[in-house]
């Protein structure tokens, strides 16, 4: 560890000029809200010098650490797996840790907002509780009957492939908070909950599929989906969310008729 630091220091000095040259000046327009200061929402501009190959999360870090320590946002792993830093960047839901600045047209101000449809607590932090409530409501766990097998529950590769796409969900809420039905009516389960129900409904080892389909057949279930494909477009994991929702709809219909 110490060698890395020393190396960095020695190489950093001669490269100081060139290191600064590949940086560009980018304006970040952040939506600020601090209930302890003001009831008003404001847009604040920060102009920083940053390497365009860095990510939006790095820019937020630089702003928080060097410009304004009161900036509040969530992030944990910073490598696109924990799902903490979903935010609305240039009007689209993305993970700040997977969005490179060079992909965003840095010539214009880059807007960063909290995801929509959830209570804004401070700056970019929203209350995720309604989102997780919908997740819990679809029972996202293995339901079986009978005796527990002494060894693992076996499954063929084809059976595993059936729900492979929906196992990729990291619960970042990018899909649910991009859904126009969810924006207007938070009672809707939302794409993420349906994706996680899909993961168990189409699992050959699971026996609670009928229960989950019954839950998603509710008034606020899959029938509220308008197939606008916002969720599929927003998903940072590339899950075909709308397709999963349609598959759940088809499963409900084929089980009823």
């Amino acid at each position, binding site marked *: 560890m110490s060698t890395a630091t020393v190396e960095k220091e020695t190489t950093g000095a001669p490269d100081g000029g060139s290191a600064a040259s590949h940086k560009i000046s980018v304006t970040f327009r952040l939506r600020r809200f601090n209930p302890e200061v*003001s*009831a*008003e929402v404001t847009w604040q501009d920060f102009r920083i010098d940053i390497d365009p190959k860095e990510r939006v999360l790095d820019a937020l870090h630089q702003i928080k650490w060097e410009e304004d320590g009161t900036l509040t946002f969530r992030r944990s792993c910073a490598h696109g797996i924990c799902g903490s830093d979903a935010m609305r960047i240039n009007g689209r839901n993305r993970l700040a840790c997977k969005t490179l600045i060079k992909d965003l047209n840095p010539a214009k101000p880059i807007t960063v907002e909290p995801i929509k449809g959830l209570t*804004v*607590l401070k700056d970019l932090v929203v209350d995720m509780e309604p989102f997780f409530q919908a997740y819990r409501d679809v029972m996202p766990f293995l339901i079986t009957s009978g005796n527990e097998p002494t060894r693992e529950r076996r499954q063929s590769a084809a059976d595993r492939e059936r729900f492979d796409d929906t196992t990729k969900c990291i619960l970042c809420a990018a899909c649910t908070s991009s859904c126009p039905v969810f924006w207007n*009516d938070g009672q809707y389960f939302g794409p993420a909950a349906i994706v996680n129900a899909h993961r168990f409904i189409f699992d050959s080892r699971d026996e609670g599929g009928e229960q989950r389909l019954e839950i998603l057949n509710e008034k606020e279930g899959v029938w509220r989906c308008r197939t606008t494909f916002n969720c599929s477009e927003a998903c940072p994991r590339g899950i075909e969310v709308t397709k999963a929702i349609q598959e759940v709809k088809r499963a409900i219909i084929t089980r009823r008729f």
Partner: protein
Amino acid sequence: MSTETTPANSGTAGERPIGPDNPAPVIEPPRTRTGRSPRSTRTNFELHGWLFMRLSGILLVFLVLGHLLIQLVLDGGVSKVSFAFVAGRWASPFWQVWDLLMLWLAMLHGANGLRTIINDYAQRDNTRFWLKMLLYTATVFTILLGTLVIFTFDPNIR
């Protein structure tokens, strides 16, 4: 290095100054989900509504396009449509059934579509309820009136 700060939204400040002890209300979205939210219905109504929209839509494509073709294009176009033309068509049970089917399917299809739009966009419970009541009243009235006309149409009316 903040260059500018522009207010995007104006809230109402209370009498006491806003501070850590008296925080402003957080920005809440309409109708949040809570632990009590689900388990509202256990019927297949939405399922049947969804299926009805698809099936009636397919049927309406043929019914409405056929209707438009007969009324506006074939046989001299719209200028031929008169009381006598309508009376002649409704003398046949085939056209009575066609028009009745078109009336019922189009009204229910449209009403169900508007119902979902109201459900999606009306935020307050009261607004949603009264908009839907208005919609249902108008739908029932139009369907009943149309059905009455089709079945009690008298070509010899004076």
